[in-house]
């Protein structure tokens, strides 16, 4: 159960801050800004009022990193990379612990900025004395994200090394798609033996259409027609069942709620 909770930890970290924490730390300005920011709860992130409340909070405490990050979200979601970057940079400058992992993930996920994501993750790694943690949706450890980015940038060997280091970390339990990502990278350098091993591990852990699709491609290349057909059909079946790589935030939230219910039950 502990492992499951850890996977969803980012959700807990990035909730509305506890305003009293600022008060206990003697930062009355951030406390006041934080209390004001609670008023934004009743507005949608895209609404004018939402933005204006956080502007007011920033006027009270220009160091209130959370406000910049909250303001940035609507721009991120609407693809306005120019405004998003200005706001999230400010949040990172003020509080890298909370915001640098988030910016790294967003650069990868929303803008396919692989170099930028790597730079952020490596910077975080150099600053942090703790595990650098997971993507905001809980799908990937940030080291796996770094591996994916290197893989896309065609540095396959480096990517594989990063994947294996993370997967061999003692305290680490493989994520939802880690072995799939490793398998794809092996596949791309035509190391079919290791690719199949990785895809098998992925199947055991969390079978998805893409995983079966790549297996079918390998068996086709190896001229094993029976296994090619089997995996092709499996890929179509999984796809029809919506067992795909991209799971939506709402599904994550549902799982998160279930986890919370289970924790409370136990």
């Amino acid at each position, binding site marked *: 159960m502990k492992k499951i909770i850890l996977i969803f930890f980012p959700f807990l970290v990035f909730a509305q801050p506890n305003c009293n924490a600022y008060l206990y730390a003697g930062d009355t300005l951030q406390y006041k800004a934080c209390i004001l920011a609670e008023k934004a709860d009743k507005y949608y*992130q895209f609404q*004018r009022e939402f*933005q204006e409340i956080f502007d007011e909070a920033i006027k009270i405490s220009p160091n209130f990193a959370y406000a910049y990050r909250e303001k940035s979200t609507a*721009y991120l979601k609407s693809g*306005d990379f120019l405004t998003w970057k200005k706001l999230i940079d400010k949040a990172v400058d003020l509080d890298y612990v909370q915001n640098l992992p988030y910016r790294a993930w967003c650069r990868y996920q929303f803008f*396919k900025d692989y170099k930028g994501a790597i730079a952020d993750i490596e910077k975080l790694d150099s600053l942090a004395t703790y595990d650098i943690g997971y993507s905001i949706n809980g799908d990937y450890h940030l080291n796996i994200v770094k591996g994916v980015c290197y893989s896309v940038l065609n540095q396959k060997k480096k990517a594989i090394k990063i994947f294996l280091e993370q997967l061999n970390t003692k305290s680490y339990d493989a994520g939802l798609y880690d072995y799939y990502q490793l398998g794809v990278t092996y596949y791309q350098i035509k190391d079919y033996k290791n690719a199949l091993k990785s895809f098998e591990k992925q199947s055991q852990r969390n079978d998805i259409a893409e995983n079966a699709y790549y297996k079918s491609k390998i068996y086709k290349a190896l001229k094993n027609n029976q296994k090619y057909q089997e995996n092709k059909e499996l890929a179509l079946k999984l796809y029809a069942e919506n067992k795909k790589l991209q799971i939506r935030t709402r599904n994550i939230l549902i799982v998160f709620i279930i986890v919370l219910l289970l924790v409370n039950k136990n």
Partner: protein
Amino acid sequence: MIRFLKCLFLFPLFVFSQEKEAKSLYPNFVGDIEFNKELDNENFELCFDKHIYQYFNDSNGFDYEGEKLAVENEFSKEYKSKIIPNETGLIRINFIVNCKGQTDRFRLIAMDEDYNPKEFDKSITEQLLRIAKSLKGWKGKQIKGNKIDYYQYLIFKIENGQLKEILP
């Protein structure tokens, strides 16, 4: 006289509220695209004037006939560019899809690799706009059984003039 004084008293409040409205830095919703008669089709109709949703508000996300692959195929087929050094970065085109799946109010922003505003070569942006405007597979969306209009965007990752990826 009393009436006059009342009016005199209320006048500054009226002026103040007008001024506050005018001075807001934001549209009603982040990313709102106002009609511009220089750019937009006057015959394009919104089905619901009061609010335009975002494409992900119905939880179905990107909703196109043939899924995203069909959009990628369209651009892959239509977009042609020679290699243009330093024409690298992201271009976002956003627009409205009305409840009938029709599109209009196309707007474009662009950045270089460091998230600075960038003006790309027109041969790139004009092509992307033309192809985006020609897409006919956008699906009308509904929320709680009501037809909606929504904002959709496409982000193009360009490297030296070449189209590398399309998001979201």
